């Protein structure tokens, strides 16, 4: 546990320190949320119906942006050897890295999501649901993204590869989250979507690290 906290602190410092990782993700998020309405036309009622979906999809993309280098940096400079030989198993290393990514990028994005949704004209009634959805979904985005990042280790053009591996895995949380938000906005039962999203996030957190550790071992071999 002590080792886990030491590593988590380092990962957070790396995420916050290196050119303001969370700020970059937030800026990207703001750009996407601004661009989509420009493309979709400016009729307010159409925008309002798209707003929860846009806020949600942009969240997935912004999470992906900062994930590519999650393992690659440590792999290139040899730090992954050190992490693999430490007191904690590689599975715990993967958890620490993904958790740090979520704390540094996912959580700030989850707090920005309601602002974006309101700015696009979404009904304010969805805000209490949007924050927990974005927090839980962000957790799934971080852990699945880490899986993609570890599988792409050592390949050239890693960024594109990560996106191609990860985006299909982002489909279920995007559907569940956007579905729940849509249902709430339309006055329909919405708990099912939220529970499915929570279940999917829990599965990603539980199973992702096992796969990430295996992928890292494979890359080191």
């Amino acid at each position, binding site marked *: 546990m002590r080792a886990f906290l030491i590593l988590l602190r380092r990962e957070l410092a790396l995420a916050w320190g*290196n050119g303001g990782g969370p700020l970059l993700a937030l800026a990207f998020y703001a750009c996407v949320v601004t661009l989509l309405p420009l493309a979709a036309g400016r009729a307010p009622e159409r925008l309002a119906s798209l707003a929860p979906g846009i806020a949600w999809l942009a969240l997935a993309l912004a999470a992906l942006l900062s994930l590519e280098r999650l393992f690659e940096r440590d792999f290139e400079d040899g*730090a992954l*050897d050190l992490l693999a*030989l*430490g*007191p904690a198993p590689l599975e715990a290393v993967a958890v620490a890295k993904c958790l740090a990514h979520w704390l540094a990028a996912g959580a700030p994005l989850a707090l920005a999501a309601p602002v974006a949704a309101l700015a696009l004209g979404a009904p304010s009634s969805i805000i209490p649901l949007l924050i927990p959805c974005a927090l839980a979904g962000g957790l799934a985005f971080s852990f699945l993204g880490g899986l993609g990042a570890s599988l792409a280790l050592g390949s050239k053009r890693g960024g594109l590869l990560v996106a191609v591996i990860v985006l299909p895995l982002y489909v279920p949380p995007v559907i569940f989250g956007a579905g729940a938000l849509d249902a709430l906005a339309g006055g329909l039962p919405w708990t099912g979507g939220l529970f499915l999203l929570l279940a999917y996030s829990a599965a990603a957190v539980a199973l992702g690290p096992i796969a990430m550790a295996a992928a890292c071992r494979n890359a080191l071999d």
Partner: protein
Amino acid sequence: MLRAIRIKDLSLVRGERRLFSGLDLEISAGDAVALTGRNGAGKTSLLRAVAGLLRPAQGTVGFEGEAGPLEAEVARADALHLVGHHDGLKSTRSAWDELLFQTLWTGGTEASARAAATKLDLDRLLGLEIRRLSAGQRRRVALARLLASPRALWLLDEPMAPLDAGHREGFGGLMAQHLAGGGMVLAAVHDPLPVPCRVVEIGG
């Protein structure tokens, strides 16, 4: 405490190429072994196989403690250091942040990190970012964790290549102390090690 390493009938294959086969090597407390051989002979791969990062094609690496054989996973997690030719340091962090993380991660304390920095003549460099350091200074930061968190087996890959003459001598003295205290050193080198050692040629 790790007392001996027994490498038996080890074969390593990288891709299609067999690096070496049938390697037997025993290292016991107080021994230093220098691995020599041409470039690409498999010295680095042997170190990584001992560290458990590479799966051998054949053969075993056994670890022995005072009370008999140790489980390899346990021995690797708390009884060996691997310092490779990549230093594992983040270029944007300060030397002290990186040294402290590496020390704590491998089981040392803040005080031991300070002491190690002093022994390796790093005191004036600790506040600098890693990218401002020269190759030799970076290597000394990486080597500092060997002293900061004492572990019995040092796996070193060209440890002294970037060091200047003075620091080579200094590090030689630290290696001798480690050996005198019952430590072990397995180092891939092209220049002779500055301590009495056995020379094993790989892929000869």
